[in-house]
Structures are given as C-alpha cells and as structure tokens.
C-alpha cells in the first residue's frame, strides 16, 4: 500500500468513531481535509489529530444522542410495558399462594393480605396505571419503586440476591419500556384482549401453581417462583405473538430479568456470604443480555444530520449533505 493509501486507511479507521449518518455525509470531505493537511511521506495520523478526531466524534455523538430505536424494538418495548407489570402481579400472586400454602396451610385472599403487607399494592397499582394508559404516572411510580428497592437492597446487603436483582432489572425494563416506546396504548393494541388474558393467566398460574412442583430444599422457593413466572410469561408471550419479529424481541427483553434467577436456580451460587464471584455470576449474564439487546436495537444507519432538512434525491457517486447539514 502506498504511503498515501496507508494514511487514508488509518484516517478512515479513526472516522469510524463518528455516527453513521455523519460519516455518510462528511467522511470523504473530512478525508480530503485531513489528507490536504498531511505532510509529504506521512504514513500515520499525528497523535494530536487522532485524539482530536475521536474527541470530535464523541462531541457529535453526545450532541445527537443515541440512535433511534428500530420500530420493531419500539413495539416490543410497548408490549413489555404492559407485560412487565403483569409479571410483577404474577410474582406477587405466587408469593401470596406459596407463603400461605407453606406457612398457613391455606390460601387467603388478596384483600386479607394487603392490609398486612401494603407493599404488595405496588404491582396492583402499577397494573392499574398501565391499563389506564397513564404512562407518565406509571413511569414515575416504577422509577420511585425501583430506586427505593435498589437502595434498600444495598442497605440490607441484599444486592447479591437473585430475587432483588430480578425485581430491580424488571423495574428498569418497565421504566425503559414506558419511556422509550409508544407506551401501553400501543402495547395493548399489539397484544389484543385475548392474548392479554392469556399472558395474565400464564403469569399468575406460573407464579402460583408451579411453585410446589419445582421447589426443593436446595433452591429457595421464591427464586423458583419468580423464574416460573418469567419463563411462563415469556412462553405465553412467544405463543401469543408467535414467530413475529416483535414477539421474538419481547421474549428477548423478558429474558433479561430472568438471567439472575436462572443463575440462582442452576445452583452456581452457594448459600452463605456473598462473594465477588457470586455477584459476577448474578450480574454479568444480566448485563450481557442487556448489552446484546441494546446493540441489536440500534439501527445500523441513521441520518442524524440534516434530518429535518429538505430531502434531496440520492447523490451522484460520493458523499452528500442536505442543506444545512454541516
């Protein structure tokens, strides 16, 4: 490769830091400026130029914000904004049934339990807010509850518990779903009443009925219960919106909160004091799942610059900029 070609290649690698839309509009032009300013015989970008390009790319990325979500992911999040509160409802139902069956030998009703444990009102209230399509109020409620739960978990040194991790991640998922998607209105429209009923029943049935069949002394009952709810609901969602692009994404999203539970059920985390290894086992799969979904949910290409400028037909060979998109 010639000196010029090598320098150009290296500059292109640095320009890859820029958002796709900016590259499409300005890469060739910027290369022209960079090569015009290069010294004769120069093979590598000067360190100052490299740092300056990366810094410039970061500034533009910060200014333009994250890439818009793919519409299929937006729809999937809209479905999750409805499904996640139902999961909570299922988990709480399971908790009530298993607690009662285990300790009281009988099943008591919601209205008997709630006065004794008002925190259980949270999921019920959330489901009500979501079904009433009060998106902002629901988002505020979830943020408050999730942050409160996180603080409590840290204060009680329970942050290594798969159960808390599940609640916190589910709360974060619901917050993201309410904030970055068209919201419960779209979610309810996509799910439909029958499917909605199917998911609700699956969540509550999984929470309530599978507990006794799956619980063993080695695996704590709450973990089994929560996992059963998540997997049951994910399966119900998959069947309900089967083989659709949105349905697959819903399942992927709902699987994220299940990660810590799966790790706990697998028996990899021993009982006793929480070690760094335990924390890594619980948190890393969750973070990995989240990262994969985040990466997949970004559009590969976007035109952030000149997006609001008049559209011009595709340019002749070479890059192109809309008026004002500099």
């Amino acid at each position, binding site marked *: 490769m010639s000196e010029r070609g090598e320098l150009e290649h290296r500059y292109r690698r640095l320009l890859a830091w820029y958002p796709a839309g900016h590259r499409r509009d300005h890469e*060739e032009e910027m290369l022209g400026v960079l090569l015009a300013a290069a010294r004769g015989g120069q093979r590598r970008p000067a360190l100052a130029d490299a740092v300056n390009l990366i810094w410039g790319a970061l500034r*533009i990325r910060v200014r333009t914000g994250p890439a818009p979500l793919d519409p299929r992911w937006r729809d999937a999040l809209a479905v999750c904004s409805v499904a996640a509160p139902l999961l909570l409802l299922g988990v709480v139902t399971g908790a009530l049934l298993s607690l009662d069956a285990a300790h009281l030998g009988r099943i008591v009703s919601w209205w008997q339990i709630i006065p004794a444990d008002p925190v259980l009102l949270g999921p019920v209230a959330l489901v009500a807010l979501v079904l009433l399509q009060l998106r902002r109020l629901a988002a505020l409620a979830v943020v408050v509850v999730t942050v409160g739960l996180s603080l409590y978990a840290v204060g009680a040194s329970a942050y290594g518990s798969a159960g808390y991790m599940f609640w916190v991640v589910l709360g974060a998922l619901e917050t993201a779903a309410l904030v970055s998607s068209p919201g419960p209105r779209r979610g309810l429209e996509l799910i439909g009443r029958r499917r909605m009923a199917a998911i609700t029943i699956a969540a509550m049935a999984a929470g309530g009925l599978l507990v006794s069949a799956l619980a063993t002394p080695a695996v704590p009952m709450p973990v089994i219960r929560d996992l059963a709810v998540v997997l049951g609901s994910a399966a119900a969602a998959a069947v309900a919106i089967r083989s659709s692009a949105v349905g697959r994404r819903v399942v992927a999203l709902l699987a994220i909160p299940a990660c810590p539970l799966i790790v706990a059920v697998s028996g990899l985390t021993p009982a006793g004091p929480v070690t760094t290894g335990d924390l890594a086992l619980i948190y890393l799969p969750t973070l990995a799942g989240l990262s994969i979904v985040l990466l997949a949910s970004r559009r590969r290409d976007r035109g952030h610059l000149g997006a609001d400028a008049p559209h011009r037909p595709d340019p002749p060979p*070479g890059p192109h900029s809309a008026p*004002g998109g500099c």
Partner: protein
Amino acid sequence: MSQRPLQEPAFLILTALAGGAQHGYGITADAGQISGGRVRLRAGTLYAALDRLGGDGLVEVDHEEVVDGRLRRYYQLTEAGAQRLASEVARLRANTTAAAQRLGLIAGTP
C-alpha cells in the same frame, strides 16, 4: 434572552465564511491566518463546530465540487450566521473598549 459567547473555533469559522464560501481545508487555513497563526483548527474540531453551527442554522452548504477525485463541500454564512457574528463582534468590541479605557490604552481617557 442573551446569547452565549461564541467559542473561538466557531468565531473563527464564521469570520472565515464572512469573506465568502469556503471548503473545509480553506476554512482551516483562513482561521490560521485570522488568528495570526495562533490557532490551528484540526479536522475533528472543525467538523464538530460545523455540525453545531449547521444545526443552529448559522452556516449552510453552498455547493460541492470534486477535485482530484475528492469531494469538496463549500460552506457559507446564513443570514442568521451573519447576525450572530455581528452581535458577537459588538459584544467583544464593548468589552475590549472598556478594558482599554481602564488601562489607559485609548488616548484622552484617564
């Protein structure tokens, strides 16, 4: 609402374009001359500033041409850009005049 002062790269770019449309490398060369060689606008700084100025409607693309197989895009000042530069000049002038008066650098002042 009072405007925030222009940062130096933005000020130099607008000043360069006040003399007429220029392409990217022309702007960097001109900015060097305007600043008496004190400021060297690197490509990352130039295009981050152009991105912001374009987004604010202060500069726009004038025309494009291909030279030696390489694209050149010429930018020009918009009317809003000219007004912004003029108000910045007035602001700087008021400040420098006040500073010069206090330092006794202007004849006839204490």
